[in-house]
C-alpha cells in the first residue's frame, strides 16, 4: 500500500502534536489515524489518556480509507495532506423517556424545563430530569406548537398554538407551579401550526394554515385589555370560556399561497417562514414586506436557522434536508443536500453551539444527527421511536429531544457539545 505524506493539526490546544509531516499508509482508516495521534500525544505527555479522534481532510470527514477518500474527493496524493483532527463526537446517549397521553406535536426545551405540545389538546411542562411538572390545558383543539418566550426568575412566559386557530400566551410560575392564560391571540382563520418568538422575547410570530403570518406582541399586559373586533356577528353567543384577554395581531404578513408550516426569527427584525407552496420567504418586520424568496420544488415542513453558520436548514417532503443561505437575493440556491431519510423530514434543528451539526426527525421513525462536513451520511441514527417523529429540539446544555406519534418524548445527552464548544 502506498504511503502518503500527512500533516496533522487541530484547533484544540490540549491535543496539539508537532507540526511535522508523517508518512502514513494510504489504506489507514480513522481508527489507525486515531491511534497514531494517541501515540504521539502519549510520547509528548505521559499522563495522556486515550481519546478517540475524528479526521477532516479539506473540511470533509474521513469515513473510508484515506487513499480512497482522497481519490473520491480528487485530492492529489503527491503533496502533503493537511489532516485536521477533532475529538470524536460520541453517540448521543438516551436519558429519559417521557410518556404522553397522545401524539407529541411540538417540543421546546431550555436549560431547566421542557415544554411539549400534544394532540390531547394540552401542553406539558417537564423538568429536564423527566418529571412532569405541569399540564397546560385550555385549547379546544390539538396543540400544534409550543415555545418558551422568556423567563424572569420564577415566572415564565410560554406560547401554545393550536388547531383551534388561537395562540395562547401563558404565564407560569415555577415555584408555585401555577399557570395562567394571559392572552388569547385571535385572528387566524386556520389552524395555527407554528409559532416563534423573537430573540428579545417581546414579539412573536405565528404561521397558520390560512396562509398568513401574524406578528403579535408577547408582552403580557394586564391592564390594557385589547379591544376585540367582534366582526359582523349579529348575535354573538360566545359561550366559550374566555381564556385570558383577547389579543389582536400587530401585523399580518400575507404572501404565501399555501399553508405556512414553519416560522422563525433570524434576528430581531427578520422573520423567515416556510410554506407548503414550496417557498421559504424572508420578511422584514419593520416594514412588513417580503425580502427574499427561496424556491424549492417540494413542500417544506420545517426550517431551522443557525446564527453560527448563518444557514437555513429545511426539511421537506422529498426526504431531503437542504441548506440555504437566506441572504442570497437570487434565491433557490441550495448549498447542500443531506440525504438519508426515507420519509418526510418533519423537524430539523441546528445545534445551538456548533456550527456544523444539526438534528433531524422524520416520518421514517428516525432521528438523525448530522454534521455538514459529512453530507453523505449522518453521524448517528437514533432509532428510539417506534412511530413517526414530529419534533426535535436541542438545548444549549447539550440535551437533544425528540417526540413523535408513539407518545414518547426522548431526551438524549449529547456530551461532545461541551468539548466542541470549548474548542
Amino acid at each position, binding site marked *: 500500500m502506498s504511503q502518503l505524506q500527512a500533516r496533522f493539526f487541530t484547533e484544540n490546544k490540549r491535543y496539539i502534536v508537532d507540526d511535522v509531516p508523517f508518512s502514513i499508509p494510504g489504506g489507514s482508516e480513522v481508527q489507525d489515524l486515531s491511534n497514531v495521534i494517541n501515540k504521539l500525544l502519549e510520547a509528548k505527555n505521559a499522563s495522556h489518556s486515550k481519546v478517540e479522534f475524528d479526521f477532516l481532510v479539506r473540511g470533509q470527514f474521513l469515513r473510508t480509507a484515506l487513499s480512497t477518500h482522497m481519490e473520491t474527493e480528487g485530492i492529489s496524493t503527491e503533496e502533503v495532506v493537511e489532516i485536521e483532527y477533532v475529538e470524536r463526537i460520541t453517540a448521543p446517549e438516551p436519558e429519559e423517556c417521557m410518556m404522553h397521553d397522545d*401524539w407529541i*406535536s411540538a417540543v421546546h426545551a431550555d436549560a431547566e424545563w421542557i415544554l411539549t405540545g400534544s*394532540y390531547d389538546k394540552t401542553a406539558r411542562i417537564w423538568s429536564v430530569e423527566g418529571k412532569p411538572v405541569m399540564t397546560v390545558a385550555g385549547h379546544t383543539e*390539538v396543540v400544534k406548537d409550543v415555545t418558551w418566550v422568556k423567563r424572569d426568575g420564577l415566572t415564565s412566559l410560554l406560547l401554545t398554538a393550536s388547531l*383551534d*386557530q388561537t395562540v395562547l400566551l401563558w404565564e407560569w410560575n415555577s415555584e408555585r407551579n401555577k399557570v395562567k392564560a394571559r392572552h388569547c391571540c385571535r385572528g387566524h*382563520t*386556520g*389552524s395555527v401550526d407554528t409559532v416563534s418568538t423573537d430573540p428579545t422575547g417581546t414579539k412573536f410570530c405565528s404561521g397558520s*394554515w*390560512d396562509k398568513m403570518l401574524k406578528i403579535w406582541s408577547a408582552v403580557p399586559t394586564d391592564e390594557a385589555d385589547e379591544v376585540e373586533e367582534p366582526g359582523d356577528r349579529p348575535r354573538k353567543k360566545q359561550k366559550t370560556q374566555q381564556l385570558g384577554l383577547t389579543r389582536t395581531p400587530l401585523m399580518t404578513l400575507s404572501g404565501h399561497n*399555501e*399553508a405556512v408550516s414553519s416560522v422563525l426569527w433570524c434576528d430581531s427584525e427578520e422573520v423567515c417562514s416556510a410554506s*407548503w407552496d414550496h417557498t421559504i420567504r424572508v420578511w422584514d418586520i419593520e416594514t412588513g414586506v417580503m425580502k427574499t424568496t427561496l424556491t424549492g*420544488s*417540494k*413542500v417544506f*415542513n420545517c426550517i431551522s436557522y443557525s446564527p453560527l453558520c448563518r444557514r437555513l436548514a429545511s426539511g421537506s*417532503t*422529498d*426526504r431531503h434536508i437542504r441548506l440555504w443561505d437566506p441572504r442570497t437575493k437570487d434565491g433557490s440556491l441550495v448549498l447542500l443536500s443531506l440525504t438519508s431519510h426515507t*420519509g*418526510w423530514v418533519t423537524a430539523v434543528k441546528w445545534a445551538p453551539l456548533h456550527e456544523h451539526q444539526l438534528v433531524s426527525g422524520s*416520518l421514517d421513525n428516525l432521528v438523525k444527527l448530522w454534521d455538514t462536513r459529512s453530507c453523505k451520511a449522518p453521524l448517528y441514527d437514533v432509532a428510539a421511536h417506534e412511530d*413517526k417523529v*414530529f419534533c426535535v429540539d436541542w438545548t444549549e446544555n447539550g440535551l437533544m429531544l425528540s417526540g413523535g*406519534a408513539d407518545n414518547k418524548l426522548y431526551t438524549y445527552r449529547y456530551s461532545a457539545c461541551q468539548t466542541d464548544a470549548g474548542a
Partner: protein
Amino acid sequence: MAACSSNSNMRREEQTEEKKKAREKSAKKRSKEEGDEGDEGEEIFSFKDKAAVDEEEDDDLSDSEDSVYSGLEDSGSDSDDEDDDDKDDNEEEEEEEDGSGNEDEEEDLKTETQQTGQTEQKKTTTMKKKKEGKEVTEEEKVNEYEHDSSDEEDIRNTVGNIPMEWYKDFPHIGYNLDGKKIYKPIRNKDELDEFLDKMENPEYWKTIHDKQTGRDIVLSDEQVDLVNRLQRGQFGDVNFNEYEPTVEFFTSDVMIHPVTNRPADKRSFIPSLIEKEKVSKMVHAIKMGWIKPRRVEDDSKGRYYDLWTGEDSSLVAKHKMHLPAPKIPLPSHQESYNPPPEYLFTDEERALWDQQDPSDRKLPFVPRKFSSLRQVPAFPRFIHERFERCLDLYLCPRQRKMRVNVNPEDLIPKLPKPKDLQPFPTTQSLVYRGHTGLIRSISVSPSGQWLASGSDDGSVRIWEVCSSRCMKTVQVGGAVKSISWNPNPAVCLLAVAVESVVLILSPSLGDKQVISATERLLSGQQEAETTEGEGPVSWIETEGEELNQGIHLKIQHAKAVQQVAWHAKGDYLASVMPDHSSHLQVLIHQLSRRRSQNPFRKNKGLVQCVSFHPIRPYFFVATQRCIRIYNLVKQEMTKKLQANSKWISSMDVHSSGDHVICGSYDCRLGWFDLDLSTKPYKMLRHHKKAVRGVAYHRSYPLFASASDDGSVIICHGTVYNDLLQNPLIVPVKVLKGHEITHDLGVLDVTFHPTQPWVFSSGADATVRLFT
C-alpha cells in the same frame, strides 16, 4: 580398298548406264576420287578445272560425294541431267510445237527412269553385299566440311520448304542454283503402268517419289535399314551405344560444405553506380522535359461507356422489376405412366374427383397405369393445359412487392421522459390506519387539510392529511358506499352514501366561521322545506346522538345509493341508485332548499356514476357502455360518448370540463376529448385487473387510476388550450403499496387539491398517501 570398291561401283554403273550419262562424267568422278585419295591440293585443282568445264556437273558431283548414301545421289544427279535436257528440249519445243514431241520425250523419260531404277537396285544390292566396316571407313574418308552445304536443305531445288502444290499448275517445279527452271518429269504413268510396275518391279516397295525434284528414288538397303530402325525408335546409327557407362561430372553425394566459401562481394550490397548514373540521367531528362512519362490513356471519352445511359429510365426500371415466370412443379409419381399403386385413385377418390368442380380438384388429371410406355396415349388436355398456363401467366401480374422496412422502435411515439414531467407522486409517504373494513371511498377537503374516508366497517373517518392523524370517527351504521366533500370552501360538509340513505355530515373542522356558516346553512332551511312529502325521497332532520356526531340531515332514498356527487358550487348533490328496471336512478338534491328531483324520465341503462361539469350546467351520466352528457338548462342530451368497454366503473371530469376519463372493469382507462370525438381519444390498458377508480388532479396535469391489481398508475396528461393539439398522455408511475385482500386491490383514488399528491384507499383497510 575403298578406292577399289568405288571403282568397282563405277564400273557397274558404267555398264548399266548407256544413255546421256556419258563416260566422261564417271571418268571425272573416278579421277576426282583418285585425287581425293592422293592430295587435297590436287583435288582442288581438279575441282576448279571441272567448274570451268561444267558447273552443273560439279554441283551434282559434290552432292553425290557428300552424301553417305551415294545411290540416292546418283539418281539425283541423273535427274538433274535429265532436267537440263528437258529444259533444252522444252525450249526447243516451245519454239516448235507441243503435243507430239513432248509425248515422245515423256516416253523416253519413262524408259530412262525404269532403267535408272534398275541400276539403282543393282547398286543397292551390291552395297548390301559389302561389309559394314568398309562403309564406316568410307565415311571417315569423306570430309564433311569440304562443301558448304546444309545437311537439311536440299539445294537442288531452290524454292525452299514450301508446299509443292503451288507448282501444281506450272510445267516446272522450281529453280536450280542457276535460276533455271526445273521441269517436272514427264510421267504419264497411268494405273495400269503403276500396277505393272508394282507387279513386276521387285524394288517397287522401296521406291519413293521425291516431290521436290519429281523423281522416283529407290532406297538402298542401308536406307531401308535406317528407316526401319527409326520406325522402331532406335538410333539411326547402328554403332551408337545408348547404354554407355555414365561419367559423373558432378558427384551425386550432397556435400556439407559449400563449393565456395567466399563472402559475398561488397558490390552486392551497395547500389550500383552505373544504375544510379542511368537513373539520374533519366531523371534529368524527365526534368528537362526530354522524356515524357508515359501518359495514361484517357478513357473518359468513351472506349468503354455505359450502354444504358441513354435508355429510357422507365424501360430500365421495368427490366429491373422483371420477375421470371414461376416454374411449373416437376412431375411427380402421380404423373408417371406407371405410378405406384398408392397413387392410383380408389373408387371413392375417383367418384370424388368426378363430382368436384375442376377448380376444386386436387389433381387436374386422373393417375393412370400402363403396362408399358408404348401404350400411353397422347395427353388429350395438352392444348388446354398449355392454354391455362399461359392464361395464368398473363392474368396473374407478377409484381415485386416493395416491403417497407420499419424499425419497430420508430413506431413508438416520442414521449417525454417521466423525469421531465415532474412533479408527480413517486413514493408512499403516509399510511392512514384505523379502519377495519375495506375503504370504498375517500375524499379530500377543498383546502387539502382533511381527508374523509368511508369504509365497510360502518364508519366515516376524517384524517389530518399532513400527520395521518385520525381527527374524527363517525359511526354511520352501515357500509359507506360513497363519500364526497362539499367543494364549496365556505362550508364544511360531507355527503355520505350509506345503504339507502345519503347523510349530510358536518365534520366541524377548520375555521370556526366556516363551521358556523355550515350549521346555519343546515339549520336555516328548516322552515322553508316543510312541504316535502310527495317526492321520491324524504329529508330527515337528525337529533340527539347523530346530531352530536355531526350528522345533520338524512336523505332517505327508496333504494341503495351507490354514489354521491356534489356540484362545483356545493349546493346541488346528485345521488345514484343503479336499477335496471326503473327510470328513477339518478336524483339531484338541492341542499339549500331541500328539494329533490328526478331529471330523467327514461331508463337508458344501468347508471354507474354521475358527475357535474365543473363550470357549465352539464351533467355526465355513465351507464355500462357509454357516457351521456346532458345540458341541465335546456334539459336535453348533448353528447353520447362510446366508451368501447364492457362495463364502466368510474369516471372523472377534467377541471376544464373538456376532458373525461373513465375506468372500466375490463382493465381499461379511456380518455375522451369532448371537442374531438365521441370515441375515446386514447385507451390505456396498463392495469391487469379491473379499474376501480379514476381521478384528475385539479391543477397539475395528472390523472390516476386505481385497480384491483393493487396498483395506482399515475399518468401525465397535459391539456392544451390550442384546439389543434391533442392532449399529451404519458404514464409516469406505478404506485404499489396496497395489499390485495379478497381479490380487491385499490378501490378509490383521489388527488390532493393543491399538491401533486395522490391518496388511495384499498381493501386492506388503509388509505395511503403517495407524494
